[in-house]
Every structure is written in structure tokens, then in C-alpha cells.
């Protein structure tokens, strides 16, 4: 029997000050919002990767598939295709979704299955003690790059826009209500929804100051305008010291992948009969 506050009794092992706490409560609140809207709690499934972020699967008292590093999206896709009535959410890390399993992210967007992907983008491999990820700034000194990386980060927002994602948003663990609101919108969007969450890693990449100083909430931006979304995305390249927009950058309704598959109603003909009928054609 899930607990009222949707939090399990599992011992929480995130570091003090970790942005994951904010994310956990923002997601919990967004889920409560969904339930208030009439979505049965048992219809919600959370899929996580492996990393600090993924512990949220232990902490939230809802259906969950705690999968392996980098693979939230195919698991979520399978679940959604199996049962389109479910609301399927991925909580992935940036190492998870942008490095180990980047291809799935792009195909998630391309396929436009109705799942929501929340990337806990702390711009570092937290659980494996602070190595650089694809969104760490150039020159990042982690334990695998003690002299600093020689790779500039890529821009996941631009990548998602180029991949055909129909819901592209960014928020941060520095703004709990904003984050919760964006997640709520993402969950309600019909189609693939992507939320890049700039999450504070208190132990290995604490750039609260940067996000507070440069972050601003979008206003007057038209999320239906693809070009405008691209320009907004390019404003900050995950490297420089530039304004960082939070909010819904792009939204487009398009046919979802699973529509294509007719739901099968239980057949009156037994499988064995169907098979025998097929065999007849081969005689």
C-alpha cells in the first residue's frame, strides 16, 4: 500500500544539499497533481538508470523499474507500447542519457512515444565520484581528466530540437515550483517530453551561484516557434557564462508512435486454431 506522501521508507543516501532532493519533491508534487486530475496512481511507472539520480526509484513509492546505466528510454518505450494507459516517466542522469545511452534519447524523440524524460543534469558522474560528462564545461577536472577535459560540452536542448522532440524544456533544482510546474506540463504533453534539469551536485559540481545569477524564467517566448526555440537554446552553450533560460522552449503536438499499433482485443479464435489455419497455406 503506497504511502500517502508517496515516499518509501528506504533510507535516503543523497549528500546534504544535493539537488536531487528538490527534484524528488518536484516530481512527487507533479505526480500528485496528475492523480488529483484523475490519473490512477497505479497507472504511473517510473524508470530509472543507474547513478545518484536513479535512487529516486527507491524513494518514490510508485511502480518503478530500476534499470541499468543509460537504458531508461527503451525500457520506458517498451512499457508504454505494452500498455498505452500507463504514464511512463524516465529519471535519467546526464551520464546515463547523454553518454552511455545517448542514441536512445534521440530515438525517443524521433519515435515520439508518449513518455516523459527528466534528465538530472548535474553535469558530472555523481555516483562514480565526479568524472566529466557530455555537459561538463571545457577544461573540467575530474578524476579521469586531472588535467582538464579537452572537449567542449554539447547542448542537449539543441540536440533534442534537432531530433524532433515535441516537448523541450529546461528547469533547475534551484527553482522548485518552476521545476514542478514544468514536470507537470511534460507529464501532460501527449508525445515524447524532454526536461533538462540543471541539478546541483553538492559534492562534485556545485554551480548554484551560476544558475542563480544567469538563470531566468522565459516569458513572452512562443513555444510553438521552432526557430525561436533554436535561438533560445543557443543562448547558453553549457560552457560559457551566458543567460540561461528556464521554461518550455518548444512544444508541438504530433502523432505518437503507439497510435500506429492497434490494440488487440481478445480474439475468439484460439491461437492454436489460428496457427493451424496458417499452416494450411503452407501445404
Amino acid at each position, binding site marked *: *500500500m*503506497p504511502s500517502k506522501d508517496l515516499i*518509501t521508507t*528506504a533510507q535516503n543516501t543523497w549528500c546534504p544539499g544535493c539537488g536531487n532532493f528538490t527534484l524528488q519533491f518536484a516530481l512527487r508534487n507533479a505526480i500528485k497533481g496528475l492523480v488529483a486530475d484523475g490519473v*490512477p496512481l*497505479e*497507472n504511473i*511507472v517510473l*524508470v530509472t538508470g*543507474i547513478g545518484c539520480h536513479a*535512487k529516486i*526509484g*527507491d524513494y518514490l*513509492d*510508485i*511502480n*518503478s*523499474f*530500476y*534499470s*541499468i546505466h543509460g*537504458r531508461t528510454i*527503451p*525500457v*520506458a*518505450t*517498451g*512499457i*508504454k*507500447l*505494452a*500498455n498505452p*494507459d*500507463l504514464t511512463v516517466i524516465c529519471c535519467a542522469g546526464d551520464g546515463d542519457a547523454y553518454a552511455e*545511452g545517448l*542514441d*536512445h534519447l534521440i*530515438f525517443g524523440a524521433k519515435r515520439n512515444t508518449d513518455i516523459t524524460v527528466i534528465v538530472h543534469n548535474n553535469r558530472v558522474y555523481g555516483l562514480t565520484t565526479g568524472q566529466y560528462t557530455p555537459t561538463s564545461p571545457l577544461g573540467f577536472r575530474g578524476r579521469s581528466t586531472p588535467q582538464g577535459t579537452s572537449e567542449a560540452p554539447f547542448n542537449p536542448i539543441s540536440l533534442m530540437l534537432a531530433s524532433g522532440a515535441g516537448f523541450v524544456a529546461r528547469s533547475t533544482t534551484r527553482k522548485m515550483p518552476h521545476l514542478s510546474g514544468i514536470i507537470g506540463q511534460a507529464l501532460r504533453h501527449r508525445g515524447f517530453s524532454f526536461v533538462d534539469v540543471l541539478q546541483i551536485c553538492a559534492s562534485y559540481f556545485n554551480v548554484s551561484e551560476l544558475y542563480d545569477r544567469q538563470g531566468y524564467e522565459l516569458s513572452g517566448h512562443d513555444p510553438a516557434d521552432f526557430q525561436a526555440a533554436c535561438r533560445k537554446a543557443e543562448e547558453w552553450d553549457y560552457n560559457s557564462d551566458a543567460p540561461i533560460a528556464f521554461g518550455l522552449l518548444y512544444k508541438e503536438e504530433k502523432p505518437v508512435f503507439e497510435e500506429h*499499433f492497434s490494440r*488487440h482485443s*481478445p*480474439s475468439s479464435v484460439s*491461437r*492454436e486454431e*489460428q*496457427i*493451424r489455419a*496458417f*499452416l*494450411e*497455406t*503452407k*501445404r
Partner: protein
Amino acid sequence: MNDISVLTGGRAGDGINSAGLLIAHLFNQMGYQTYMYFDYPSLIKGGHNFTITRAADKKIGAHRERCDYLLALSQDSIDLHRDLITDDTVILFDSGRVHGDGQGIAVGEILKAEQAPAVMGNSCLIGAFARAAGIPFDVVETVIRRQIPKEREKNLVIARKGYDSVSEKRSIPRAGDTCCPLLNGNELIGLGLLHGGLDAYVAYPMTPTSNLLHFLAGVAGSFPLTVIHPENEIAVMLMALGFSFAGKKTAVGTSGGGFCLMTEGFSLAGSSEVPVVVVMGQRTGPSTGLPTYTGQTDLRFVLHAGQGEFPRLVVAPGSPEQAYVWSSVALSLAWKCQVPAVILVDKTLCEGTYSFDDTAMTVPDTGDEPAPSPEAGQYRRYAITENGISPMQFPPMKDAAIKVNSYAHDEAGITTEKADMVLLMTEKRQRKAQALKYETDSLECVKTYGTSGARTALLCWGSTLLVCKEVAERHGFRVVQPIVFSPFPEEQLREAVAGIRNLIAVEENAEGQLRLLCHQHGIPVGSHIAKLDGRPFSVEELDARLREVS
């Protein structure tokens, strides 16, 4: 006995596979048992493809190194098979493309006259073959009407012209009245899975199981089945686990290279106890190897693939009937015991076409899956049970949070690092392995054939079964074939080899993988006959190799 081999050769793109199949259907209508081997290199047009369609009045599943009829659509089809041609070989060829002895058929001209596309050349060919083999035209007509979906009348006209353009050379008698469905291994695996309750099939194309994907995608309209072809094999495996988690019986298909990419997800299936079935079609390795040829080199890989220890079911059917039955059983048992399963096959079985004995379709009932726990509010995905199998439920389930986990976990599915809980769950999985063994013990995991009192037996697995059976009969040997490899049916195998003095392993690998497995279980195997060039054993070759060792 009647035993006829027809070699049909041409270039890729000529539809040699279909031509060979139509010939098999002619034999089928004449009451023969048939088997067709299809040999093709990895290219799309050109090169040299050939089929050997064999017909006999008893069940067969191997090709012979002889050629009673040769149908040549290309010069190579004669030049490259000189060793198979004897004075008795009836040769028919497309006179527009081939020079040689025998009877030419002006395929091009016939098609032109009918304004027919190149693909209809096959009808011309089988018409001609039927005449040369003294098969009445009404048999041709039946086959065309049943097996050619489009433009039947035009095909018939063309077949008739082919029929009329040659003369009877060597007449084939009618062998009986039964006429079986002709199917290839991929189709039978697909049907077996459907019988077992398959809801979803996920795959990325890879020879020799691509055609299983194509077959299932094709019938997905008529069965309650979802078929998905995702971006790569990693996605395939993980998507399949998503389907299973949500309650859909799911299988995936691949070959060695793709299976490599699935091993991480396979271990996840083991740890999280989310069932999945992998159809693993072997081909010649290592690495890309010979993609369109066969091999039996991956038995030990699938037995040990994935990090950590967890129970798994591995079955290796050896005949078309076994392919059907065991595919169904594999899916059912994977679900009943909540384990990953592998159906280990190879190019020979996947892409060979067989007369399927549909009276042998009886799939043993593996019983029900464990009942759901009574108090929903208390649902724990990994509840500790006596036989290690926890009741499996799927979202949505009211008042429950269904949690599966790749980490070591507690009964509720929440991560634990506590030594005692880890041990409890490891022991639970061990008990589940026992439960699975208990299930397979009630099935015929090891088959024996041939002379029962024999002191010599051929030990084989997978697609070599049928060639072994045929050759063993000649020698008066017994044949012992394990079908299940994990859990290993040690007792059944021991019983099967009781009384055997000389156990000869026949495997299409160098290491003697089954032989080593037997040794591991204290069952001595004498010699080992290997085949390493990607081509299946012919009856003659195995016979000769046996004479060397026995």
C-alpha cells in the same frame, strides 16, 4: 527408397530460394517428405545462390552430395557444381544465359512473349522441371495456385510453356498421399512462440533470424502481436524487458554479434526476474565471420553470458517439430519461472525448409504461472517463497507499487546492500533454479533415436540432429540429442548414454562444446567430429567422417 536431389542455381536476385521452394512443393504434392538447403553469399544481386531440394519417402533434414536434376539459371550453376553432376543428372538450363549439355529453356523469350516480369521465370522453370521429372501438369497447377499469391493465370501460362519446352527424362513416381505444410525454421519458431502466448516481438535485423522478424511483422495483423524494430540490439533487449514488466510475453531475436549487445540486459533480466526469450541464431564466427553460413560455436557463450549468476533456460531444438514445440515451451517456462531463456538455433535450421509434421505439434503443458498474492495491498515483487518464485504482477495494480530492480534488493524491490538480504535473494534465485530444473525434468530434455541396443552413439545438438539420424541409421548407431542445456539434464543424459561404449560428438565447432559440457558432468565422450567451414554436414560427408573415426 526414393531419394531425389534437385539443385537449383542462379544469381542472387533470381529468386532461387523461391524456385527451390516451389520444387519442394511439387514433391510435397507428390507425397514426398522434403528438405531444402539454401546456400547464398552475403550480397543482394549477382554472385551464386543455390538450393538443394531433396525429396524422399521418409523424413529427412539434410542435403546430399548428389544432384539428380540440375536447374541452372546461370553458368556458375553448372560450372561450380561439376562434382555433383553425373551421367544420370538431368540438366535443365535457361538457354538465354547458360551454355551446356542438357535441355535449354528459352526463359527470356517465353517471358517476353507473355510480357511477364523476370520473377515469373520461376514458374517457367518449375514447369520445365515437372515435365522432365514426369510430374503431371495438374500438380504444377496446384502448386502455383496455392503458393503464388499474384497473377496466377499468367504464371500458369508461363509454367505450361516451360512444361512444353522440354521432354521427360527421368520420371519421379508418386510417393504417397500425405502432403505436409512446408516451413522454414524461423517460421516454426515464430509459430511456436505464438503458441506459447507471444504478445510482442522486438528485433533488429541480423542473419539468420532477420526472417523471423519479417515473418512476425507480416503476421502481426492476424495475431494479437506487436512487432518493433528499434535502433539497435541494446534497445531491443531493454524494450523487451519493458514489455515484459508491463505484462506482455515478449521475445527478441538476433545472432551472435547482436546477442553480445544484449548480454547486459540479459543479466538485468536475471537479476530483476523479468522474463524474456532470446532467439539466438548462430552463424559462422568469430565476429562478422560468414554472415550467411552456419555454425554451432555459441553454446557456451549463451550458457554463461551476462555478469553474475542467475538461472536461465537454454534450449536448442534440432528439428522443425522441436523448433515449434520448444519455442512454445521456452516462452511458457520463462514466464512460469521468471527467468531469461534462449532458443539456440543456427542458420541451417532457421533458413532450411522442411516438411513439417503437424501431428507432432503437441506442446507439453507446463502448467500455470504462480497465482498472484492474495492481499494486494501487501504486494511485494520479490516475496520470498519456498520454490523461489514470487507472484508476478504488472502495473496497474491497485494499492501496490510494483518495483523491479537491477541492484541487489529486498522483497519489495528496494535496493539493499545488507549482506543478509543479499544472501537471502541469492538463495531465492538458487531455489528458483531448482524449480526450473524440476520443470524441465518432467520434459523429454534428451532424445534418443536409432538402434536401441547399439554400442556406438552419435551425440549431437541443434540442426545436426537430422543428418546424424540419417547417417546413424546406415551405421546402426544410436543418436543422443540433448535439447535442454540449462538447467543441464545430467540424469536424463546419463540414462540416454547408458550402455554406449563409443560416444561420438558431432558438432559444427572446433572446441567440442557439448563434449566439454559432458566432461564437466562426468560423461565421457570419445571422439569429436567437427565442421568448421560454415557449411552444414551433408549425408555423405558425415558418413565418410564417421568411417574415419569408428
